[in-house]
Structures are given as C-alpha cells and as structure tokens.
C-alpha cells in the first residue's frame, strides 16, 4: 500500500476535487487494504477535529492578516537590493498572501460545512454515474446513440437509462454544482437532479424500487403496483405512491418534500405524514415533520434555472449562488455585520457580475467589496477592491 499516494487521494477527496479516475483508485485501495480505511478515518478526524475544529469557530480578520503579512514582507524587502525588484516582489507576495487567505477562509468554510452538513455531496466537475463495482462513467463522454445502457440528447442534459449499465444493476448519479440534468430510469420514472445532487438507484427492471437522494430532485414517478417505490433521505424517507414531487435536502435545518401531484408518505424517526397535492413536508434533521402549503412558483423555479429569494442575508445567499452558478461565495464578515437583506432572482446562465450589480450592489456598496474569481466570489466588508489588485 502506497500510503503517500492514498493520503493524496484522501486529501483530494476532502478538498472536494478528486477526479473520477482517482476516486475509483481510492475506492479500490479502500476495498483492498483495511489499513487504508483506517488512514482515511484518521485523516478526516485530523482535518476536521482538534486544533482544526478550534480554528473553524474563530473569526478571521482579513485586514489584520494582510497587515501582518505586509509588515513581514516589508522587513524582508529592506534586506534586498534593487528597489524595483523589491516593489514587484512585494506586490506578488501581497497578491499571493491575499489569495492565500481567501482560500484559507474558503477552506475553513468547507470544513465547517463538512461538519455541520454531515451528508455533504461530493463535488464533481462533470456529471458521473458511479456503478456498484466503483466504475465511474463520465456522462459528458456518452455518445448520443447510446452505449452500455445509457443514451443522451445532443446537449448532454437529458439521459435515458434503459437497464443495467455494463451489466451492473445499481449505481449513483452525481451532478456537478451549477447544472441540472434529467434522467429517465428503466421503470420510466423521470428524475431531474439539481446541481451537486446525489441519487443512488437500481437500474434493474425487477428489483424493488429503492433509492437514496441527497440534494434537490424533482421526481415524476412512474406507477408500478408490483414494485413499491421508496426514496431514502439523509434524514427520513418517502414512500411514493405514483406521483410528482420535489425533494430538497440541501440544508439539514430545512429539509423539504413538496408534493405537486398524487400522494406520498413522508416519514422520519419522529413523525409520519401523508401529503396531499400542493402541500409540503418540512423538517429539521432529527426533528418532527411539519406540513404546510408551499409556493409552487418559488419552490419549482429551479426547474427553469431561476432561483428566487427574498429578504436574505449574504450567508443565506451562498447556497443559492452555488446552485444557480456553481460558484462559491467566501464571505469575510462576521455574523454581527451580515445584516443587509437582499431580494431578487438569480438566473442560471446570466452573468454573475450583472446579477450582483442589479440585486446586491445597490445596498452593499460601498460598505462591501467584491472580487470575482473563476469559480468563486470573495465578499469582504473590510477593504475596497483596489487594495487587492
């Protein structure tokens, strides 16, 4: 067993950026070497508990950090010779330091998320199906004429699974952040998965229909009296009785099953409820399920690529932007200062900068500064953008 290599894979996995190939190799190593399982458990513990846990709760002032780093760089610069070179080096190191702290904050946030949302869906950059035998199929490579039991439309957004894939009758579909995909399963059930969603299902024509969903899924279940359909959730389960409904488990403190048509029974350890059309089951992890009517336009707006929100804070905007644009927001502000409230609609495919200009800037500027990166946005209440670039 190559401990170093396995450590790197585990770090990539924790980092949320493991390639499908490496994920398969890690999976194989875990199956072949029991000590690799121990190593993974130890590393997860090391990187999310103890000293690291203490760090997560702390507020980090970016301004203070940059000031300290700048002082160190200035002292170092005085020792060196050509003024021009020192200035350039100072700029470069300052840039690296700013970016480093930006990613450090993001890293801390990821760890926090991993701790508070213990069912976090792994992040893949493309849609994949991981078969029961750990084979990973990258769905963007499937040809439109279909092979291995899967076919796809020209846009690679809608897939049809006609039966076992490569003779394997069970697998997990995982979607990347910021994109949604539709799948027709062998029993003709249609599922539409929102970004960063996990759906484990059977591809058999005869096995009981039992699935596991985590993220957001719109289900149009095909009726089949002989094969009951159950969807397990990270907390609770849905007994499907031939119907159309939306599942949202993104936030453990706001799990929702919203019924559009037909009937479902939703249950967890605390309570079981039967939903009628246009009603929803809502609960917090490990708490009793409550029923309520729901705003269909708002709850199902993601099917049109629209994410409506009203009177929310920056912190509450984070998961919305992750879903609509697949971008991370790193917020450098304390809970006490995150007091502004925003309303609007984030539309998938629309420029994120335009979205911020229209919906956020009117209230947030000049108190907050915004830095746009390729895959994330850094929002700070401490300094103006010009100081960073």
């Amino acid at each position, binding site marked *: 067993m190559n401990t170093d290599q396995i450590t790197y894979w585990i770090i990539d996995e*924790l*980092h949320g950026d493991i390639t499908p190939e490496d994920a398969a190799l890690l999976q194989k190593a875990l199956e072949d070497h029991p000590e690799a399982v121990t190593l993974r458990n130890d590393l997860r513990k090391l990187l999310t508990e103890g000293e*690291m846990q203490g*760090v997560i709760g702390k507020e980090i002032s970016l301004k203070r950090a940059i000031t300290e780093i700048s002082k160190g760089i200035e002292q170092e610069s005085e020792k060196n010779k050509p003024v021009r070179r020192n200035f350039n*080096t100072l700029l470069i190191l300052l840039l690296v330091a700013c970016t480093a702290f930006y990613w450090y904050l993001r*890293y801390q946030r990821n760890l926090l998320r991993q701790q508070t949302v213990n069912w976090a869906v792994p992040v893949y950059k493309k849609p994949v199906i991981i078969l029961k035998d750990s084979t990973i199929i990258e769905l963007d490579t499937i040809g439109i004429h279909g092979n291995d039991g899967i076919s796809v439309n020209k846009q690679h957004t809608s897939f049809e699974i006609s039966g076992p894939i490569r003779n394997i009758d069970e697998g997990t579909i995982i979607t990347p952040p910021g994109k949604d995909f539709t799948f027709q399963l062998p029993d003709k059930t249609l599922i539409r998965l929102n970004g960063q969603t996990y759906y484990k299902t059977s591809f058999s024509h005869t096995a009981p229909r039992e699935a596991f969903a985590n993220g957001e899924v719109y289900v149009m279940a095909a009726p089949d009296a002989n094969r009951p359909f159950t969807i397990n959730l990270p907390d609770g389960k849905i007994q499907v009785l031939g119907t159309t409904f939306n599942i949202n488990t993104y936030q453990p403190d706001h799990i929702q099953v919203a019924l559009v048509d037909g009937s479902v029974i939703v249950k967890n350890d605390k309570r079981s409820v039967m939903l009628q059309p246009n009603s929803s089951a809502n609960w917090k992890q490990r708490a009793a399920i409550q029923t309520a009517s729901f705003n269909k336009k708002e709850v199902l707006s993601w099917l049109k690529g629209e994410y409506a929100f009203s009177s929310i804070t920056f912190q509450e905007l984070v998961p919305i932007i992750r879903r609509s644009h697949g971008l991370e927001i790193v917020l450098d502000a304390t809970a006490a200062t995150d007091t502004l409230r925003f309303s609007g609609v984030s539309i998938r495919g629309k420029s994120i900068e335009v979205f911020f200009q229209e919906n956020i800037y009117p209230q947030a500027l000049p108190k907050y500064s915004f830095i746009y990166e390729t895959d994330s946005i850094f929002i700070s209440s401490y300094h103006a953008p010009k100081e960073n670039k």
Partner: protein
Amino acid sequence: MRLMERIANNDPEALETLFMAHRQRVYMDAYVRLKDRSAAWSVTTDIYSWIWKEKPDISPFSSVKSLLQEEVKKRTIVK
C-alpha cells in the same frame, strides 16, 4: 506556454493560477504531516515564495502537483 515557463518569465498571473489550483492541497498535505496549523501555513506560503524566487525546473517531476508534493515532503521533514 506552460505555467512553470510563464513563472520563469516572471508572469505574476501564472503564479496566481498555480496558487489557486493547488493551495488547498498543499496546505492540507503540510498540516497532515506537521499537525500544526501555523507551521503548515508557513510551509504553504514558503513554497510559493520559493517557486517565484527560484523558478524550479519541473522536468524531474511528472507534474506540478508532484513537484509541490515533493516540496511539502522535503520541507516538513526538515521542520
């Protein structure tokens, strides 16, 4: 032009790109080895400063990722 070649030509954006791509891995790798947050952070920033100053030759390694892994290993053993 490859990233390390651009760094060799003093392109600061290339260093930023390199940093963005690997910073978390480097930090986590260093922390796993040192089990000390500030020391891991120091190793992470040291490595990028070193890359900028020394413009190391990547040819002995299969990828930039391998170079960074090796550098973390080297620096954490010394510490």
